[in-house]
């Protein structure tokens, strides 16, 4: 089981939760698990072809998954995932 931090702009799709538990052997599986529980999140994270949208930043334990193996990065128990949103307010 891993935890995933949900940024404020997406919390309306996770019943207001700031952190959710997910489980998977890879990030792709964990994200599958996430969107199975919160289907309304899916269009915000993935495009029609099932690829992560380019403006979605996913971090695993402080590292950008683009600098790891992307969605295929294997996960360990207690890993922590974060979605970092594009926000522009000032």
């Amino acid at each position, binding site marked *: 089981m891993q935890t995933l931090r949900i940024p404020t702009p997406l919390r309306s799709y996770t019943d207001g939760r700031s952190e959710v538990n997910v489980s998977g052997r890879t990030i792709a599986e964990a994200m599958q698990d996430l969107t199975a529980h919160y289907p309304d999140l899916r269009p915000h994270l993935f495009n029609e072809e099932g690829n992560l949208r380019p*403006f979605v*930043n996913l971090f695993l334990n402080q590292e*950008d998954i683009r600098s790891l193996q992307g969605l295929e990065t294997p996960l360990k128990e207690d890993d922590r995932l974060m979605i970092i949103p594009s*926000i522009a*307010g*000032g």
Partner: protein
Amino acid sequence: MYPTLSHEEILRYSRHLLIPDVGLEGQRKLKAASVLVIGTGGLGSPVSLYLAAAGVGRIGLVDYDVVDASNLQRQVIHGTQSIGDLKVESARQRLLDLNPDIQVEVYNEPFTSANAMRIASDYDLLVDGTDNFPTRYLTNDVCVLLGKPNVYGSIFRFEGQVSVFDARRGPCYRCLFPEPPPPGLVPSCAEGGVLGVLPGTIGTLQATEALKLILGIGEPLIGKLLLYNALDMSFEFVKLRKNPRCKVCSPEPEVTELIDYEAFCGVPGHDRDEGEVGGGWDIAASDLAKRLKVGNHIRLIDVREPHELEISHLEGAQLIPLGQLAARLSELDSAQEIVLFCKSGTRSARALELLLSAGFRKVKNLKGGINAWAREVDPRLPIY
């Protein structure tokens, strides 16, 4: 050589001079420094106030807006007296009152591809306190092209981000966010709101980073992004890396001069909630009032959030929040005339596009939203 300090300045900056890491030399570095603050709103207020108080010798302010009553909940550099005044003028007066020994240069114009290089080239570093995606990408690219640090801060509701983007030493904004989100996906502060103290927290962190860069002390937030959440009172850091294929800061960049950032982001370079759709799809509040008065059967759909009904509402309107509209289209009849509205017209403009793409044609957007109705038709309603 750094400029010397007068006796008055030595007294003023006494608490800095006592810190060995700053000292007289550090204070003289601050006096010699110049910082351009983009935006004099929520973030620009604390940033410029603290930089001025700290004795940064020359502060540039870019903004083209005027002070509005709805700014004062967070834009603490302005006051009730300055409602209606140019923001840069209101800010200049406050900064010079705080510290008459500094220079404040103001640019009462939007920061655009046409003027950005000219304005920015005259400053040591830039602080990004803008409120929209186009100006953020512009500020980044200007800094990369001119080889200057960009002290970045951004806020939404209870959440903030801070980093120092310096492409000479680390990643840039585009390394982290290669593409802007699609228009309308991320609500702005004008639509989504923001806790007033949040820009205070994030702006003071930006000011701290700017001072550290000028003084050359400590560890700058280069290659790190700070994520702050006021509700959890959490500060978390992630590592940022230079994207080897970054369009602007990689060795072979695609972007070598400023581009059209509003086109790139698909949204305007400001965060004023003033939605209209254009192309004949809008209806003015006064026209809607006339048509309702003569008994036209028009279905009013309010696409705001439930908690906004308490502030103001229109008689007979049905609430379908924008986020639920796509799933609730079956509740609407495309044969009946529909008028969509929200606070000021931005969300209802998006709702209208959704209905158009679903095949609706007898549909209009209330231009300027329920606030326009309050202004033009029913002054008993508050404007928010």
